[in-house]
């Protein structure tokens, strides 16, 4: 593991996050129909992107772990799921904050909200499994299986939740249609905060992964030590 990559993520985050804050709060013009609350959208969307990315990475790492049985894939999967969970929670929170003034309610069973919530629930289960299950290979493999099945299940969740919504009577909200990003500065801001949140999450992921790797390595060393002692004891 090269520490330079982590440092690069950290440096990028240190530059990009203030830049994104500046652009969101100062640079970008206020959107006409939604007013000031629309600015949260520049955090909301990148968080969602990172959340999905984290879950995807966790599933890929899970598949690799099952196939190659190397501890590093398990650590990657765990770290990715944790970061994904963090940003998924942020998506729900920022979504709620936005929904209150715009839709008049903190929470509605809108199809996208519901999908995100189910996703959150999936990974809550995943992390609880890792926290409550004993730290053994079987639990790690089950977690990998859950991550894989979950990611493959996501398209079906999206389709079914849409089906669920369309037949129910619509909740009385003023759904403002597509977010029209007519001003080019809006797109620029979105791009920068996309990069900022990506760098931030990559750095968090990196830190978490390093911790997990250190833990695995420590365990490995302790095992080697115990083995060496056993061999030493056995020798005349």
């Amino acid at each position, binding site marked *: 593991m090269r520490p330079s990559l982590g440092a690069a993520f950290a440096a990028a985050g240190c530059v990009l996050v203030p830049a994104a804050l500046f652009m969101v709060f100062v640079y970008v013009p206020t959107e006409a129909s939604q007013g000031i609350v629309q600015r949260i959208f520049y955090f909301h969307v990148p968080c969602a992107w990172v959340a999905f990315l984290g879950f995807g990475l966790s599933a890929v790492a899970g598949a690799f772990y099952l196939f190659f049985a190397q501890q590093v894939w398990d650590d990657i999967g765990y770290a990715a799921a944790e970061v994904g969970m963090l940003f998924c929670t942020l998506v729900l929170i920022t979504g709620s904050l936005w929904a209150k003034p715009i839709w008049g309610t903190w929470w509605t069973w809108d199809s996208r909200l519901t999908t995100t919530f189910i996703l959150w629930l*999936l990974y809550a289960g995943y992390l609880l499994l890792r926290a409550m*299950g004993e730290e053994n290979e079987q639990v790690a493999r089950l977690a990998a299986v859950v991550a894989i099945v979950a990611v493959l299940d996501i398209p079906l969740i999206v389709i079914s939740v849409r089906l669920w919504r369309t037949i129910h009577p619509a909740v009385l909200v003023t759904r403002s249609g597509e977010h029209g990003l007519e001003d080019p500065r809006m797109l620029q801001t979105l791009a920068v905060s996309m990069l900022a949140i990506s760098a931030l999450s990559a750095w968090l992921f990196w830190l978490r992964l390093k911790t997990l790797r250190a833990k695995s390595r420590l365990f490995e060393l302790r095992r080697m030590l115990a083995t060496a002692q056993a061999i030493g004891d056995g020798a005349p």
Partner: protein
Amino acid sequence: MLTGFCALLHKDLTLERRGGRVVIELCVLSLLVLVVLVVAYGPETGGRPESAAGALWVALILSGLPGASLAVAAEHENDCLTGLRLSPLEPATIYAAKVAAVALSMAVSQAATLLLLVLFFNLQFDLNLLRLIPILLLGTLGLCALSTLLGTITSRLRAGEMLLALLTAPLYVPELIAGVKASAAVLSGASLAAVVLPLKILAACDLLFVVCGYLLFEYLAG
């Protein structure tokens, strides 16, 4: 492979016939769920086909989870699963047979649930009910495929039952939604077109869970 599958299935059915508790337990659970829901809904809402469809699926999922746990736990008793792992069977065959056995037990309890549902929710005994059968079978297969796969490990953990429910429920959401939709459409006598998309979702989920289970079970049984 087929002989192994048949032998396993035959063994599970023999065990079930001989004082097995899965079917009985599932029937009792379904009965309880239906009674509770009828009382909770009250006479007005309870009469709607949507309520009946919802009750049916609540009964299905609440009885399916413990059902799969019981079936998997039976294999851990006396280390029988180790015996199967030592045998020439492929893990995938063990998985397929286990899913089939659980699904059969659940299908029996589903039949009982359907009967009670008609009585409790004042539905008509007519051909419409027959249309529910494929929907229920698809839902049952998906639930069994999923909970047997995950239950193999969770049944050995301390908080296994809770974890199994927590992991299975969100994954099962698509089938739950599609199943309730389709059942409600059938019970309210809607046209066949309303059932097509839900059936597709059910089938797609079943395919996903069965294929995943078939391919991934070997990593969990080991």
